[in-house]
């Protein structure tokens, strides 16, 4: 794979150049000791060593609220609304790229969701090797530490002042070389990148699954009646925070409103969450998942089995956002998966 070497000082001029055409989002320090993605401006201090962005990147492809159509109440003509702002997401960790790759597959499958795809195609993803690991993260133990596709460029900091940048697409290479040629990465640079990866993997040893993650779908299948569901769900506030911060949760609700003249209106979708009490309620009031336990289990089944059945990888990328967001401290997929493993190991 083509790779170049980029000096730290070369980055801000490139960002300024990109910004002429793109909205550029970068990781920055946010309130409360957290990090988040924010628009890059001249002088923005990029948090190259951020551990975890508090919010997920799905908002750039599937915004919390998004218009799907506008309509005319007299003619009943409806117009599709598409928004596709040109945007660059810089510094995306591999587990988050993996989450976006999953959304790509799921939103394109069957009848493609063209609103999602329009945004996705207008977006450039610049991945970055993590330098630190969030204390709640466990991506290294479920194979989400590397990603083979879905990025246009992949940055690895190989020294305090240098990056090795791997090219993932023609568009990425054009953007990287927009301000002039760069030296090709040497064998030494590649070795330094490998070491940087190894270093962060060493840092991530503490939060591990007790088994090979590939067993997870089977564990889920057998664990329908496991005690962990009751034990955790008893404390669950069913607030949906875990849904909101999850990079692979994409359920939505559709609503609409007429404008004040009652002549036209808009239909829009908003994030929804399967943990919320009325998520599976049908007309007449029957609710197919009334209990928090049922909803809690459904969410994990989706992460551990249903999505895996569809695309062959876990629907959880181990980012640890849900662990941080859950006020009841019960939304830790690693604990749930490990509990199922212990249960079944003891049963066998």
């Amino acid at each position, binding site marked *: 794979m083509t790779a170049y070497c980029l000096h730290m000082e070369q980055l801000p001029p490139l960002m300024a150049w990109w910004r002429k055409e793109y909205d550029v989002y970068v990781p920055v320090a946010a309130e409360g000791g957290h990090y988040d993605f924010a628009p890059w401006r001249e002088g923005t201090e990029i948090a190259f060593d951020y551990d975890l962005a508090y919010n997920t990147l799905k908002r750039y492809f599937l915004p919390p609220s998004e218009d799907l159509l506008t309509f005319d109440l007299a003619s009943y003509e409806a117009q599709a609304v598409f928004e596709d702002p040109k945007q660059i997401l810089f510094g995306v960790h591999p587990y988050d790229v993996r989450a976006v790759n999953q959304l790509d597959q*799921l939103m394109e499958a069957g009848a493609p969701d063209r609103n999602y795809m329009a945004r996705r195609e207008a977006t450039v993803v610049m991945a970055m090797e993590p330098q630190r690991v969030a204390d709640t993260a466990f991506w290294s133990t479920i194979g989400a530490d590397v990603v083979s596709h879905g990025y246009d460029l992949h940055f690895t900091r190989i020294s305090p002042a240098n990056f090795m940048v791997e090219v993932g697409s023609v568009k990425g290479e054009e953007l990287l070389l927009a301000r002039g040629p760069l030296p090709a990465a040497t064998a030494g640079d590649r070795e330094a990148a490998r070491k940087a990866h190894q270093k962060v993997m060493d840092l991530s040893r503490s939060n591990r699954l007790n088994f090979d993650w590939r067993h997870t779908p089977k564990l889920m299948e057998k664990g329908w009646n496991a005690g962990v569901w009751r034990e955790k769900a008893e404390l669950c506030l069913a607030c949906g925070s875990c849904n909101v911060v999850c990079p692979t949760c994409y359920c939505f609700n559709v609503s609409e409103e007429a404008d004040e003249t009652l002549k036209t209106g808009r239909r829009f979708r908003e994030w929804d969450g399967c943990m919320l009490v009325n998520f599976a309620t049908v007309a007449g009031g*029957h609710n197919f998942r009334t209990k928090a336990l049922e909803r809690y289990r459904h969410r994990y089944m989706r992460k551990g089995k249903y999505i895996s059945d569809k695309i062959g990888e876990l629907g959880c990328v181990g980012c640890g956002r849900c662990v941080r967001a859950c006020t009841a401290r019960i939304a830790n997929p690693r604990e749930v998966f490990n509990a199922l493993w212990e249960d079944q190991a003891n049963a066998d």
Partner: protein
Amino acid sequence: MLTKPKSFSPYVPKPATLVGKSKLSDFVTLFTFAFDDGRILAHRPGQFIMLSIFGVGEAPFSVSSPPTKQSGNFELAVRRTGTLTEALHRLEVGAKVGVRGPYGSFFPIQKFVGQDTLFIAGGLGYIPLRSLLHYQLRHRDEFGRIVVLIGTRNPKERIFVDQLAEISARGDVEVLETVDQPDPAWTGNVGVITTLLPKVEMDPSQTYVAMVGPPIMYRFVISECRDMGIRGERIYVSLERKMKCGLGKCGHCQINGLSTCVDGPVFAYTDIETLEEAI
């Protein structure tokens, strides 16, 4: 990735006009629609559409009329139960709505050809089954025995009463009804729908079951059908869930790992018997 122009969106409904409206019971009305551009819905029995009333919202409804090649008209029978259905009931003939679809799986009519069909409808479950029944009546000689079992809470809630009397009078369709709560005028069977099953004798090796009703009904009726010797792959059910997109994306209609909108709503029992959340 994109194969069609970006201007195409599966979320855009097509305008249709309400061309007929007739009351079926205190709460249920039959609505007839026609697409404004003359297109034909081209649905198959068991499929659903997403119906929009702009400014109010959109929801899934099973099509109650059989497929037609001649006319674009199609029928929905709808119970007044929430904001959207309330608004629908207030529409006058000539009013416009938006329609997406048809969506979802359907009763596999070709398998039913030359076979006997046992229809089992609980409550409003007759609405989607009517599409299949009327298709079979139009092609009566292609199908064997047709037996229709209908269970309703009370006589006042019965729908399509006159039409069912006509069908019953044809002589080539057996229609058996029951109500849970009879009124003084009711002379028919009293009890839940399973009380009708012992009254029909079907050859399990050549019977297909088409069943729609509330979740509680499936549990009991499927078990009795199996006791009658009908195999799971011959039992078809239509399952109801909340649907927001109809495209397998929004997540609301999931039954375990399946999406009711694209994998269903019509399932062979064998496809769902191991799913904990199905019935």
